[in-house]
């Protein structure tokens, strides 16, 4: 269960946190494309309807399908051009339905972390046992595909229960992306262990910025550059993290892809930036900052 009093230690100032990342870099940047599979007619969930319209909600479903048919390839070409690799937020069912896409990321050295099984199968309403089995099954499917242990979790469609963090730890997860309180890595104190909360930069998420927030691509680029520059300046006092959560069904559209190009070019202009994967951020923190802390 979540203990709000102990999960997060009070903030004690910039100086209490690590000073730099490897190589003397001060700002870590990581890409987080959400590679998702949406079922057209999923089993109902009592808490949240998967689609806003009656089945078949082709308008919304087919847009998600665009990400896997078209957008992801456009994004990959752009990531390659900028020489960047990051961490894939992966619905494990993608390994069955679109293995070419998952393999393309594996071939390029990207990390795969768990984003549940399907983006239409939520954790809301699951019992602790069901939730643990859902997450374990998703991690197994990804590990069987890529041969590497899964260590990170972003809950599917940002859905949770009171036990999600403990279930994640029980599955061997040692870092999560679901908490939005900081631009630096924060330890999460669970009763039996510790997890890391790695910044996912929710307000830079293309879906939250463009769809929920109504930004044009033009203003989305401006938001990204402004946030990046502010954190670059603050990173002189405390090592900071910028995550860039993306959805190829949105950012892969012609009218938005150019914005991503401008953002990545902005990142590449700065010498003090460590372009990395979430796994490498976690490794650095566990080894250099919290070497004596027990974790999964």
């Amino acid at each position, binding site marked *: 269960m979540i203990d709000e009093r102990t999960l997060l230690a009070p903030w004690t100032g910039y100086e209490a946190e690590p000073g730099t990342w490897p190589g003397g870099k001060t700002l870590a940047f990581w890409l987080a494309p959400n590679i998702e599979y949406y079922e057209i007619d999923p089993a109902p969930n009592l808490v949240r309807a998967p689609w806003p*319209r009656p089945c*078949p909600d082709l308008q919304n479903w*087919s847009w998600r*399908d665009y990400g896997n048919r078209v957008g992801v390839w456009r994004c990959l070409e752009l990531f390659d051009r900028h020489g960047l690799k990051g961490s894939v937020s992966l619905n494990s069912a993608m390994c069955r339905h679109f293995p070419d896409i998952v393999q393309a990321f594996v071939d390029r050295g990207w990390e795969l972390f768990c984003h549940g099984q399907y983006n239409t199968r939520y954790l809301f309403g699951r019992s602790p046992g069901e939730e643990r089995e859902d997450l374990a099954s998703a991690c197994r499917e990804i590990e069987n595909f890529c041969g590497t242990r899964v260590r990170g979790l972003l809950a599917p469609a940002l859905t949770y229960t009171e036990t999600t963090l403990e279930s994640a730890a029980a599955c061997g997860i040692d870092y999560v992306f679901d908490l939005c309180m900081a631009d630096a890595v924060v330890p999460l104190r669970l009763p039996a262990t510790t997890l890391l909360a790695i910044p996912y930069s929710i307000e830079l998420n293309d879906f939250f910025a463009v769809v929920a927030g*109504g930004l*044009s691509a033009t203003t989305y680029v401006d938001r990204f550059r402004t946030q990046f520059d502010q954190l670059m300046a603050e990173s002189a006092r405390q090592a900071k993290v910028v995550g860039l959560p993306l959805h190829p069904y949105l950012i892969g559209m*012609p*009218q938005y892809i150019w914005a991503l190009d401008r953002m990545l070019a902005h990142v590449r202009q700065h010498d003090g930036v460590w372009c990395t994967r979430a796994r490498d951020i976690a490794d650095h923190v566990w080894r250099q900052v919290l070497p004596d802390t027990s974790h999964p």
Partner: protein
Amino acid sequence: MTAYPDQSWFDVRTLRPDRVPRPAPRFAPGCRAAIHLAVCLEAYPLGARPPFPVPGALDRPHPDLANWSQRKVALREGLARIEALLEDVGIGVSFVVQSQALDELSGFLPLLRDPRHAIVAGGAHAAALHSTFADAEAEMLAIHAVLERLRGGLGVPVEAWRSPSGVHSRHTFAVLARAGVRAVLDLNNDELPFAIKTEAGTLQALPWQHFSSDLHCLGVCKQPVRDFLNDLSEGIAWLIREAPAAGPRVLTLPVHPWIIGAPHRFRPFAQALRAWAQTPGVEFVNVRSLLAAAEPDGRPA
């Protein structure tokens, strides 16, 4: 691989640049980006409310005269501005016409019958959602009524179908195939035409993109119009740069004259459209030319 209903519809599920297992559409020589401008001419009956929210629907207490009359701009001055612009720029477009709107379009019949343009059936009216039909037979009767009204009223072929407000029943595609419809603009999932299978035959899915439309970007997301147009201009430039490796793609731009035809939006839109039309490599297409490019021998690719 587990078979899910959606996966049984498609033979082709990727536009991976190095592995496109489908015949490439035959666009005009030199085409690097095909812009499909789809002008949506909709009817919003004052007393008709959709059973769930859809973009553009009347959403204030009855009688919602303000919204109802604003939607009428699409069938009056908004369309007149677009007509003049199309004449000036000299491009062909698709008109997505709802059968109940036809009653108010008598002044625009020469425009709709102009052979440069193509007609898409848009259903009966914006709140006539296909999720509400009791069964496939009721849906078939409604589809037939729409097609007959449009064919009779316009006297030109109806070349494709777009479901009202992008809403469907579980039977819509099969019923459309049974009704003899050749192509649909109901899926937002591709930038090239592709065939979809139904129990009653094959349909050609022509690219649609609600999430590029003025209805979504300006009406729902409230983007500034100049940002919206700048984003599209950047997107077109991107497609042009991409085309030598990926081939020409279709950028579908659905517009609603009650939105884009408002004077303060229309002026920058007209400037942008003129600029796009003068851009080397840009070709304007409509459903007829798209079908000809996708089905050079008259059969689904």
